[in-house]
């Protein structure tokens, strides 16, 4: 049975929508579950403060689930998008958009749960710092959403840029590669940013007087944790906007798809690793605020070393795109 191009494009869009929403809901649910679980620990320790804990949990979860709402928006657009000139390249772009948003929302959803959970716990230890804990939690959660926003930007580009003049071979592979590059790389950065934000809430509760250095270290640590997802975004842009000449050789297409996979998978570990370095530094800045400068330097050196594997992945991706 032969299908026309329009059917294939619809098939790609519907599958992409399913992947976007299915994977997009996973991260937020895990993050919200973590926050809820920590909230129940906090309430069990001091039932009198349950109102404040629930309030913090509600506000934190509202921000934390943004990543999955991004996924919902992309999924609905994929389901109901009107494609005026359906081509197989467009089908690949729509499927890539779904992959990008689905993977890209996982890390931000999980990561946003950490500051939410630690803020609920901290509120019981330091009720007087409730407002500051909520602010730190919200800022930390908002920064965690950055990789998901990158994924949404790439998904929207894949959906709305006109690829009708691009040759099928090897563009289909470049567009799928663009989707997985940002999507997968966003996982590590989202989780890593969450680890730093969680430690900051724990730190503020432990040492309220260290709130300034703790917040500064958190923000610097989170910024570096986002770098692998920026590398992923860069490779995606190259794959989407570079013009590839038509070729019958399958290895060219595989090289482009490989470039996206290389940067995507290569960005997961460094994102989480950078977050761990930031988590440790933030936690200890709260305990030894007089050594905040040394701890910041140690964190940045550790993150730079952890980052090197993402740089290797980016170099290999660029070789696959421009040399192979």
């Amino acid at each position, binding site marked *: 049975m032969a299908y026309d191009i329009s059917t294939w494009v619809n098939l790609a869009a519907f599958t992409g929508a399913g992947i976007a*929403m299915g994977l997009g*809901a*996973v991260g*937020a*649910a*895990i993050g*919200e*579950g*973590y926050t*809820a*679980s920590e*909230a*129940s*620990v906090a*309430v*069990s320790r001091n039932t009198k403060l349950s*109102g*404040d804990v*629930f*309030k913090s*949990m*509600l*506000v934190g*979860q*509202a*921000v934390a*689930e*943004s990543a*999955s*709402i991004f996924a*919902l*928006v992309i*999924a*609905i*657009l994929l389901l*109901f*998008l009107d494609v005026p000139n359906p081509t197989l390249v467009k089908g690949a772009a729509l499927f890539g958009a779904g992959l990008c948003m689905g993977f890209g929302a996982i890390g931000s959803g999980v990561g946003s749960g950490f500051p939410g959970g630690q803020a609920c716990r901290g509120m019981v230890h330091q009720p007087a710092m409730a*407002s*500051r804990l*909520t*602010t730190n939690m*919200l*800022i930390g959660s*908002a920064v965690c959403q950055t990789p998901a926003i990158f994924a949404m930007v790439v998904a929207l580009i894949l959906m709305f840029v006109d690829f009708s003049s691009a040759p099928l071979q090897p563009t289909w592979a470049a567009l799928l590669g663009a989707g997985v590059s940002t999507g997968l790389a966003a996982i590590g950065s989202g989780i890593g940013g969450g680890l730093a934000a969680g430690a900051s809430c724990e730190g503020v509760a432990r040492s309220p007087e260290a709130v300034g250095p703790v917040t500064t270290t958190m923000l610097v640590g989170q910024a570096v944790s986002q770098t692998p997802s920026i590398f992923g975004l860069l490779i995606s842009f190259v794959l989407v906007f570079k013009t590839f000449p038509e070729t019958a050789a399958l290895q060219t297409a595989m090289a482009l798809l490989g470039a996206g996979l290389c940067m995507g998978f290569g960005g997961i570990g460094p994102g989480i690793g950078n977050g761990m370095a930031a988590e440790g530094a933030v936690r200890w800045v709260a305990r030894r605020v007089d050594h905040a400068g040394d701890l910041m330097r140690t964190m940045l050196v550790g993150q730079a070393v952890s980052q090197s594997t993402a740089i290797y992945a980016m170099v290999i991706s660029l070789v696959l795109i421009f040399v192979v």
Partner: protein
Amino acid sequence: MEAIRDTQKRYGSAAMALAIFAGLFFIIAGYKPIAKGLILGTLFSVLNFVLMGETLALRVSPSRARSSVLSMGTAMFRYLLLALPLIVAVRNDTFDLVSTVIGIFMIQLLVLGDHVAGALVSRRKRDD
């Protein structure tokens, strides 16, 4: 649960008021689809926030696995609800899609704006 209701009332009413005022501005300026999209999106954003608060007690469980499963279930239900304005905006040209999406994030934008503004004001007071 009184604290949750107060939070819902505070952000829910502020979000609706902001959407209606902005909507009026856009209607006067001649951008009726933007106004309708913004108000529709905000309405469902508030509904989602209310449902999120109402299911909080259900989701708080000592078991992390149970909390995650319950979170997933309630989230899927709320996302189905949030999909409605998006489908309306995609299918109907009288609603602007971009403003509908902005409306859906109205609660999140207000919560963040409120706390960031509060933190800036308290820092300025401390500096003075």
